[in-house]
């Protein structure tokens, strides 16, 4: 049975795909005209499903102390997490600002050389200069605690997943749910188990940050050359020896990348966890929103960006040094004497600072961007509003409104049928079944109308992300200078918490769906630009020269050669972008985007809406899995096709 489904999944429909697509388009247009306004599923705030979810929470509430195993596990986890955070914080705080700066610089020097040392030192000092030393250390400690737990659990699971296809297949939907399910949906119930403060914050951060650790570790283990594994096997290595002596050492570099991604994910939780009183910079950002002081929020956001860049560059360097393909990888960055001086110096500074009791960063050195940022934001929202407003009106009337009208007035079975049909044409029966299950699940959750609204917003955000991202990616691939200027801006866009620029966005576009879309586009653009740039830059020079010598203009070159070759990277970018856009749906709910995001926010804020919020969160997961699988399937096929084309051209 399974075998039959699998083989069906790989089979394609007979005939041209374009023909089928045209038939599908015509049939759906006819059916839409005939049945528009019928079989719609209007939203009902009192749907029975929501009641059942609410009852479930009340039941958990009432019985959470009666299951002794659960109580023991939760208490143990709480104690460990609490002690880990408190311990890390105490050590980092005790090291004080001169100590941490010196240690950071020395570590940077040993791992990556002078540039990294300078980055680490400047980074630590900037926390103090921004007047955010203590908050930054809290955030660092909480992030490191959550990352440590994520890795301690995630890497072993990732190793298992790397060695067993069946296991990986089984946990994949769980990983998807952990990553896509909005934290808002379970934040309040979690605090009932893990209490208000850092422990609950660490738990939700682990839930969000662990999946990449598992996925990338599995990828690393799988990536070990089969020849090496075979060689070890033929020498009689046991499973454990194979893992310890071959697979783990060879996958080491990829596993460091997993650490890198886990850290980035954990840092993106800083603001949301502040809603349950997590210590750290998130508090400053929430406070800035409450008191409408965008500039203050910018300072704290900047500290998060700096921390992300420091940790990213540091772990990237570590990973590069572990690259077995690089001849100089194992060579120390500095000589033995300098090494000693660096370590000794850092330790001496730390010891001196501790002995002298240096704690406060000198206030004379403080600098805040709050004033200039606030003036700039005020000026822009007063004087550029006419332009931004017109842009919003244009996109809303031309794209959002017509699409939303079609999706919410079409019969639910028609929308389901068309999307499943597209999935069938792109990826075969298996993909069509996954799509069908996701959409029917949304119907069963009684979340149809809001899901369609959100789906439209996600589609419009993706269109805008691709248009802007591809354009920037092409420019970056053409010009090294543009690329160099763009890179820090992309880092900024990806790591600056959306909460910081949410208020200016509302000032420019008002509390509307488009504002949520803007936040999503800003967040999703960086990976798209990077992937497109890499895609175009990897066009083999021979292919490009062939095009040039046959008299192609730059535009023709782009259209006929570069973009087709870069298409696989582009489709990976679409896939990445969709997950990131979905992560912003809830943020949209906070600024008037309505749809599923608003339901999730309401579910967090109000007990009586909990059921509706949870249903909406599950609907987001279903939409996410559906869009992810469809774009992934499209990507993997194009990759195969493009690979063949490049081979042919060369």
């Amino acid at each position: 049975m399974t075998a039959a489904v699998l083989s069906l999944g790989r089979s394609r429909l007979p005939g041209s795909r374009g023909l089928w697509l045209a038939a599908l388009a015509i049939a759906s247009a006819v059916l839409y005209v005939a049945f528009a306004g019928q079989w719609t599923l209007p939203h009902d705030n009192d749907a029975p499903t929501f009641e059942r979810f609410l009852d479930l929470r009340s039941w958990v509430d009432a019985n959470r102390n009666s299951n002794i195993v659960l109580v023991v596990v939760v208490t143990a986890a709480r104690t460990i997490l609490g002690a880990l955070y408190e311990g890390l914080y105490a050590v980092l705080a005790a090291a004080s600002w001169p100590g941490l700066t010196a240690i950071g610089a020395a570590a940077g020097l040993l791992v990556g050389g002078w540039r990294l040392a300078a980055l680490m030192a400047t980074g630590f000092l900037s926390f103090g200069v921004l007047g955010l030393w203590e908050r930054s250390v809290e955030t660092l400690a909480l992030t490191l605690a959550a990352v440590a737990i994520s890795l301690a659990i995630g890497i072993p699971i990732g190793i298992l997943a790397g060695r067993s296809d069946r296991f990986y297949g089984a946990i994949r939907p769980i990983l998807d749910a952990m990553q896509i399910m909005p934290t808002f949906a379970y934040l309040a119930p979690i605090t009932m188990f893990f209490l208000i403060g850092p422990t609950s914050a660490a738990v939700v951060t682990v839930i969000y940050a662990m999946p990449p650790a598992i996925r990338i570790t599995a990828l690393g283990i799988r990536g070990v050359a089969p020849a090496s594994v075979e060689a070890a096997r033929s020498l009689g290595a046991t499973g454990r020896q194979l893992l310890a002596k071959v697979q783990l050492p060879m996958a080491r570099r990829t596993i460091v990348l997993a650490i890198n991604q886990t850290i980035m994910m954990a840092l993106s939780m800083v603001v949301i966890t502040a809603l349950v009183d997590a210590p750290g910079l998130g508090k400053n950002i929430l406070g800035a929103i409450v008191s409408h002081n965008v500039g203050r929020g910018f300072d704290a956001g900047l500290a998060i960006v700096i921390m992300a860049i420091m940790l990213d560059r540091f772990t990237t360097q570590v990973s590069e040094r572990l690259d077995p393909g690089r001849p100089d990888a194992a060579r120390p960055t500095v000589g033995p004497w300098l090494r000693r001086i660096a370590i000794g110096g850092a330790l001496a500074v730390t010891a001196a600072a501790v002995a002298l009791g240096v704690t406060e960063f000198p206030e004379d050195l403080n600098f805040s961007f709050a004033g200039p940022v606030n003036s700039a934001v005020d000026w822009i929202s007063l004087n550029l509003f006419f332009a931004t407003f017109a842009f919003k009106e244009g996109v809303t009337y031309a794209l959002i409104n017509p699409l939303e009208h079609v999706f919410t007035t079409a019969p639910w079975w028609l929308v389901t049928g068309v999307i499943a049909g597209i999935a069938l044409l792109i990826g075969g029966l298996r993909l069509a079944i996954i799509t069908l299950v996701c959409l029917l699940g949304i119907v069963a959750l009684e979340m149809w109308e809001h899901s369609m609204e959100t789906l439209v917003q996600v589609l419009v955000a993706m269109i805008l992300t691709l248009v802007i991202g591809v354009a920037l990616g092409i420019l970056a691939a053409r010009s090294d200078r543009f690329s160099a200027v763009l890179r820090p801006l992309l880092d900024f866009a990806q790591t600056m918490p959306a909460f910081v620029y949410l208020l200016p966005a509302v000032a420019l576009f008002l509390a509307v769906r488009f504002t949520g879309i803007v936040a999503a586009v800003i967040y999703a653009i960086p990976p798209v630009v990077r992937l497109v740039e890499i895609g175009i830059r990897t066009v083999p020079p021979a292919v490009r020269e062939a095009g040039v010598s046959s008299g192609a203009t730059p535009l023709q070159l782009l259209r006929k050669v570069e973009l087709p070759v870069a298409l696989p990277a582009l489709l990976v970018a679409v896939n990445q972008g969709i997950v990131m856009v979905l992560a912003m749906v809830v943020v949209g709910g906070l600024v008037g985007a309505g749809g599923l995001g608003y339901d999730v926010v309401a579910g967090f804020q109000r007990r009586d809406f909990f059921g509706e919020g949870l249903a909406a969160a599950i609907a987001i997961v279903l939409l996410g899995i559906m869009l992810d699988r469809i774009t992934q399937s499209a990507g993997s096929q194009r990759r195969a096709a493009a690979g063949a084309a490049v081979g042919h051209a060369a």
Partner: protein
Amino acid sequence: MSSKRFGRLAVGLVAAGLVAAACNTGGGASKGTVNMAINPWVGYEADAAVVAYLLEEELGYTVEKKVLAEDVSWQGFESGEVDVILENWGHPALEQEYITEKGVAVDGGSTGNVGIIGWYVPAWMVEEYPDITSWENLNKYAELFKTSESGDLGEFLGTDPSYVQYDEALIENLGLDFAVRFSGSEAATVEAIKQSVEQELPLLFYWWDPHWLNAQVELVRIDLPPYEAGCDEDLEAIECDYPETDLNKILRKEFADEGGDAATLIKNFNWTNEDQNLVADYITNQDMTAEEAGKKWVEENESVWQAWMP
């Protein structure tokens, strides 16, 4: 090689020293700790700034401020993590659960502030369309409020989901040609109001007093059919304006009974909307921290707070 060994030894030594230093955190004598929920709006922070300052400076308590959403704050009464909510805007469902059923919280009395919720428009609209302030004329102006979000109807800007609200039912029952669009947060509403004043964009919205923004921009309340006792019994059929809400404090039961001077001060805390707006203005517009704002108000209003002292 020796360099490596030296490094490890030295790192180990300093790490041990750091742990020792970390454990050696001193603490001054305190009469105890008060766990204060901070709900995310400035008016609440103003209350908290003054009460926390008095608890710490006058009575010698330590105040642990916990920034929390309302729902999570109430949960804290049960787990013992929250001692007090300083400004409660009438949540019958939560009061029923935590005060009546579970018995873990008690009403701590009025803050003296009166919450006025209603429908508002910016003042420039009233100058231009003087009769707009009566709900009966709203349909005449519905066209004016049409936006890209509201289809053929006028837009009514609804609020943060956690606030008490029944605008959808009101619009339906009063037969108004409007559709509710939810801003999703107080912050988004504030930005929308500011722009409606600065750019002269028509806006009809859910709003309330006390709020610091009311000191900066002039807003006018729409006259809905007046509130009468009992007219809000069936929220599906409601046809009247929001009632005035007496804002009150909620205390954890045990804290209320055994909290000593701290509990007494909090129970006695009582001031006016003007007092609160003043402190809120310090925080939002004069760039003071909550501590600075609390200190300033306390120094200038001794006669008011002396009456609260145990």
